Structure formats: structure tokens, C-alpha cells
């Protein structure tokens, strides 16, 4: 006699909303007089994500309702500073 017991797999993968969109980098020097400035933090965050500061902030504005003025973006490109070397 064939034993007709079957198990059904539940294929639903649970959602995980808690993963941070950006890497959760901690600011340097918190609690000391040498605490990192917002500009410095923004620059370091952009570097960790391999992005220019402008592109990182633009991305953040698409994730929220925040609207970034073109003049602000211009100022942010100054934080980016250096000119790009276009190597292949």
C-alpha cells in the first residue's frame, strides 16, 4: 500500500522592512570636541556608497518627500570638490 501523506511547503518569504537603505555609519568623534561635522559626515557617507554627495542627496530626496533646491545641489557639488578623472 502506498502511503499517501503529503506535506505542502509554505513558500511565502517574510518581508524585512528594518534593513537600512543606506549603510548605518556612525559619526566619528561623538562626545568629544573633535566630533565630525555634518559636511564631513555627508562626504564620508557618499564615499562609502561610492557616490558623489550630490547623487546621494538626490537619492535621499527621492526616498522622502524632501525637495532639494537646484541652488542647494550646486553648493553640494562644491563639497564633492575634486574634478573627475575619466578612466575607462
Amino acid at each position, binding site marked *: 500500500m502506498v502511503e499517501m501523506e503529503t506535506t505542502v511547503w509554505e513558500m511565502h518569504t517574510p518581508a524585512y522592512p528594518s534593513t537600512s537603505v543606506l549603510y548605518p555609519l556612525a559619526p566619528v568623534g561623538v562626545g568629544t570636541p573633535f566630533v565630525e561635522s555634518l559636511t564631513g559626515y555627508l562626504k564620508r557617507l557618499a564615499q562609502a556608497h561610492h557616490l*558623489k554627495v550630490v547623487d546621494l542627496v538626490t537619492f535621499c530626496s527621492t526616498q522622502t518627500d524632501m525637495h532639494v533646491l537646484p541652488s542647494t545641489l550646486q553648493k553640494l557639488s562644491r563639497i564633492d570638490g575634486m574634478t573627475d578623472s575619466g578612466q575607462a
Partner: protein
Amino acid sequence: MKGIQHMDTPQFPLELLQASAEARKAYFSSKVIAHPSIVHAHTLLMSALRHPTDGQIVMVIGAPGVGKTTVRKTMVRDLTTQFLAQPERHPGHLPVAGIELEAFGGGNFKWKQTRQALLHALHEPQVDKKVWYSTTTEGEHAVLQRSTRLSSDDLGELLLTVLAQRQPQALWFDEGQHLIKVAGARGLLDQLDVLKSLANRSCIPTVLFGTYEMNVLLGLSPQLDRRIFRIHIPRYYATKPADVAAFQQVLFGLQKHLPFPEEPHLVEDWEYFFTGSLGCVGILKDWLYQAAGAAFDRDERTLTRSMCEMWARETDVLVDMLQRITSGETQFIQEHSATDLRTLLGLSVTDKATSSSTRPKTSTPKSRPGTRNPARDKVVGHG
């Protein structure tokens, strides 16, 4: 069929009978029967991921429609569940990530696009705007440089930094057979080297799912073979009673979850369904899904064999598929016996610890002509 008991209560929610054809199809599609060959592969895979060796590549290999994608989905499900169960998990970590490898036009595999797809799968923001920061020294000063045009190798380095941030438990690649679309044996070796280096440098186990076409990636170099842990998902064979029983169980499970007013009697015709699916459960399920979908549209009371015949693959297609599968299987399960290995290692041919049960294929020595088989002769006095 003798010995099979049909339960009167359907296993699906009765309100489905009033639901749309789409809802009934979706319900059937979501039901995955845990049959022995995928349960075994899943257990082995999860165990390999729990105890990974450095730079390990797990290769899950099997015929098309045998259940590789199901094993992949259950792996993702389980790793995600485990991840969520951790009481204090890092907010930036991901449970698991992976992609289906693409078949690129022109037949050449492209790592740049593959790496970009992987970055998307790792939830990276602005993948097409990535830049590469590097530090050089000019005299006593360190100078930060930034390049906007990234080569495939740059993307590889970038991927490693992303993996270090996200730390998934495993990195998976489905449709692994697309990896072999490169020119020459040297190219094949390079493909595996890229994967090995990714697994090695990121310290994240890599799982490669694919068909027997991936056979060519095996045996290329001992160095790489050492890293590869193979998991074979076999199809069911009509010659093995346990396989036949397992196939009938799957069919039974599926017929119980087909939301028709009358239960279809598919198990009675198991040989027909076995032939049409070549013993591959994925092929069987797709076939039943299409046949049942058409029957739902016509509001049929049940699914019969004649309704399934319309959706069956033609015999010549099946023969062709079977030939390809069998040749892949034979290539994969190489006929070198344990005896060959022991001889090569200079050990005595018989292994005392593991008796003949591990080597069922060794042939019994042929008797000389004229010698009687002792079993034929009655032994007097031992009645």
C-alpha cells in the same frame, strides 16, 4: 488504484470554488509539495550554508523542471526567517541576495552587467551613478581621486565593499548554465575563478543553481573542484519503486489541491503523467497548471486525462528532452566506483568498514563454464 484512500474533505478552502479562474490558478500555483528529492537537497544545502568552508561554492545541479528554483526559494525563505529571528540584528545587514544569470546576446557572458544586477539585488542606491574613489600618494600627501567610468573589475571591487556592509548569509545565482557561454576552456576556468574569488574574498558562501550544462565547469582544476560542494537533485526513475511511490505521492498531493468540485483522479493514470513529465515534478506541475487553468475557464467540474492531453508536450519533444537529460545525468554521475579511487590511492580494494552495501554496482565474478551454481543443488539433511 488499489490501496489509495481518497479523503472526502477537500484540502483547499471551499470558497475557492466560487472564486475566479485566476484566484484558483494562483492557489494551485502556490502549493508546493515537499517531495523527497527536493527535501533532501534543501536539507543538504541549508546544512552546507550553516557550516561553510572558506570560499565555498555550492553547486545545485539537476534537470530542467526538477525543482531547483523551489529549493532556491525555500533557501531564501529559511535564511530570511532565521535572519528575522535574531534578537539584535544589524540594521544594515541583508539575509540573502542573488540574481538569475542572464543569457546575453552574442553568446558571451558579461560580468559587468552581472555585477550591476547583483548591486541592484543588494538594494544599492544609484547603481548607474557609482564612482570609484582611490587614494594615491603625491610626495608626502595622500590624494583622493575619483573616477566616473568604472570598469568591470572596479565594479567587482565595489561589490566586495557592498557585501562587507550587507553581509548576506549566502549569495545565489540561478540559471548557472549561462556561465558557460564563453569561448574556450580557459574562459570556463576564468568564470569559476571569478566566482571563487568573490566567495573567497567576501567570505560569503556562493550557491550556483543550474542544469547539467554546468557539468563542463567540473573537473577543470583540482584547486577549484576542492571548493565546489555538489548537490544533485535527481528526477524520479520509473525503475525504482521508492521513486514511483514518491511520484504518486506528488500527484496525489497536487490533485488534492486542485480546486474543482470533484476531485480529479490523476494518481490512477500516474504512468501517463510520469511519461509526460519525464519524472520531473516541475514539468508535471506546469502541465497541470495549464490544463487546470483552461478547465477553470470552462467551469469544468473536474480535471480529466483527456483535458490534460491537450496540454501535453509532443512525444518527439519529450524524447529529445529525455536524451539531453540522460546524457547530462551520465556525465554528472561519473561511473568511477569507490574501488577505482581506492586502487588509485594504493589502498586494498575491499573496504572493511563499509561493506558491499555502499557499492551496489560491483559485479559478481562470473563462474567458469561447466561449474555448477551451488544454489541449484538441494542440500540433503538440512531440512
